[in-house]
């Protein structure tokens, strides 16, 4: 039972994390190769707040969201200056900068990380319920955004930035909004991670983690809420169920990214849509 609880907790954290990137990359079309930096910012904030500054689990989580969002706000400015490929490289750079800075700070534990992060105080089961409830909330929030004016503006920017500017959409404001929302949620996921694993270290927030998060979004279908949720859930449990998936995890992620982009850019969402269309046509 304990094993299943931990499994579901990890799954919930990954769903929240994948959906947070989905707001930036999926809804607003801004490719980010450094999302793990915000996840890491949240995790480090929560760890520091609860081990050093005597804050509670709840206020630590809130702090993690706020700090990650402020960080995201500044990185969002980069997306106003550069776009597409340039933005991808810039966000990748932000990821490496985060690692480089954290590694050199003794206050953040350097290479050793921060150990002894306390639990949530809700018990394993209670924490799982909290994480899953948050995942459901984030799903609902994503659905809400998608149908709101904010979502329409995001979509317009993702489709064609120059045209959206011409029709009077304030691109800068909406891009910053996407970055702030997405990174705040990533910060929250980070604080959950810190309290679940009880330890934070830089190795968990590197380029590979950024790519793993991107893989969940890309394979699920960029911008598709249900697709991203399903793939995030499956990719978090598969390595625990199947030993060969655990052994070759990165190889599988790489192959998934490669083949989805080669054969069906819509990801899982696109494939299902295609199947449904075929099935209807045959009827």
């Amino acid at each position, binding site marked *: 039972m304990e094993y299943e609880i931990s499994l579901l907790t990890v799954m919930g954290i990954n769903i929240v994390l994948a959906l947070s990137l989905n707001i930036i990359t999926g809804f607003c079309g801004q490719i980010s190769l450094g999302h793990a930096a915000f996840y890491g910012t949240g995790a480090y904030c929560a760890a520091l707040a609860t081990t050093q500054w005597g804050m509670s689990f709840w206020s630590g989580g809130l702090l993690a969201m706020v700090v990650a969002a402020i960080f995201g706000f500044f990185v969002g400015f980069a997306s106003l200056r550069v776009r597409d*490929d340039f933005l991808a490289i810039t966000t990748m750079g932000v990821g490496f900068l985060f690692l*480089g800075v954290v590694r050199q700070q003794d206050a953040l534990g350097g290479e050793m990380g921060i150990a002894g992060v306390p639990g949530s105080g809700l018990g394993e089961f209670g924490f799982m319920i909290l994480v899953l409830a948050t995942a459901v909330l984030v799903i609902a929030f994503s659905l809400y955004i998608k149908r709101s004016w904010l979502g329409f503006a995001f979509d317009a920017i993702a489709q064609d930035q120059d045209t959206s500017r011409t029709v009077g959409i304030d691109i800068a404001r909406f891009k910053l909004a996407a970055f702030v929302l997405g990174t705040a949620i990533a910060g929250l996921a980070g604080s959950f991670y810190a309290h679940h694993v009880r330890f934070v270290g830089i190795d968990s927030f590197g380029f590979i983690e950024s790519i793993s998060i991107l893989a969940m979004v890309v394979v699920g279908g960029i911008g598709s809420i249900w697709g991203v949720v399903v793939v995030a859930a499956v990719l978090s449990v598969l390595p625990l169920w199947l030993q060969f998936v655990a052994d070759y995890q990165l190889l599988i992620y790489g192959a998934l990214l490669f083949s989805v982009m080669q054969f069906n850019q819509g990801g899982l969402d696109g494939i299902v849509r295609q199947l449904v269309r075929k099935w209807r046509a045959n009827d």
Partner: protein
Amino acid sequence: MVHFELLVQGLVQGTIYALVAVGLTLVYGLLRILHIAHAGLFSLGGYIALLLANQTGSFAFGLACSVLLVGLAGMAIYRLAYQPILDKPPYVALIVSIGLYIIMEEVFRLVFGPSTISFINPPLQGIVEFYGIRLREVEIATMAVAILFIGGVGILSTKTRIGVAWRATVDDPEMARSFGVRLYSVRYFNFFMASVMAATAGAMVAVSNNMVEPTMGGVPAYKALAIIVMGGLGDVRGTLFAALALGIIESFGTIYLGSILDRDAIAFAFLIIVLMFRPQGLLVRN
């Protein structure tokens, strides 16, 4: 004197970055693809050169084979991975390339093992005195090879038919095609040259560190990406300038900024500063 030594060390590092980055910027200039899998070719070049040198005892033979095989591998990557998706939005090729790089890194791990491999008889280890600075032979060789290749690319692109065709294709593919340029041959040629340079850089780094490992391509490749962005994507002169500048800045930065940032972070801090002030690249005019 210390400063002069730092400068020279920075230039050596900068030429390695240049060898990797010029290839990347050539690919970007032609196809608008951020070719992250270039890093995999860099590692592959190091592995082939080292393993063959250990087998046959001749580093020159290993290097020659490595350059040729990796050049062909680069052409194969273009044909199999990029050609089918050229008409898709830019992020598609980017993600394909990331996927490909991760696959290559994992395959190296599975085939050659996760630990480092070293030369049995490390070549080019002698030390040369040069105006009071001690340089290893491998460092001089690296600079010589880099000048040879990059100068070669420069001459090739201005003085030969394929070079003229190549520049015409970069400027306007449709126009070049209507003048009888075979686009596919230009693209194959481009990938071949870029991969040859990556393999050479990989082999030289393998000698310099006396080891290869599956992840050896990571850091130089990420930095090469930063360099080509700073150089103004597709601009070869800007890329060269950015590569050498980064080598020198890192060399001084590790002394003066080492307590705040590590070496890799300095590169990206520099990148972000450059992008905020000159998003079009260091040398590109508006």
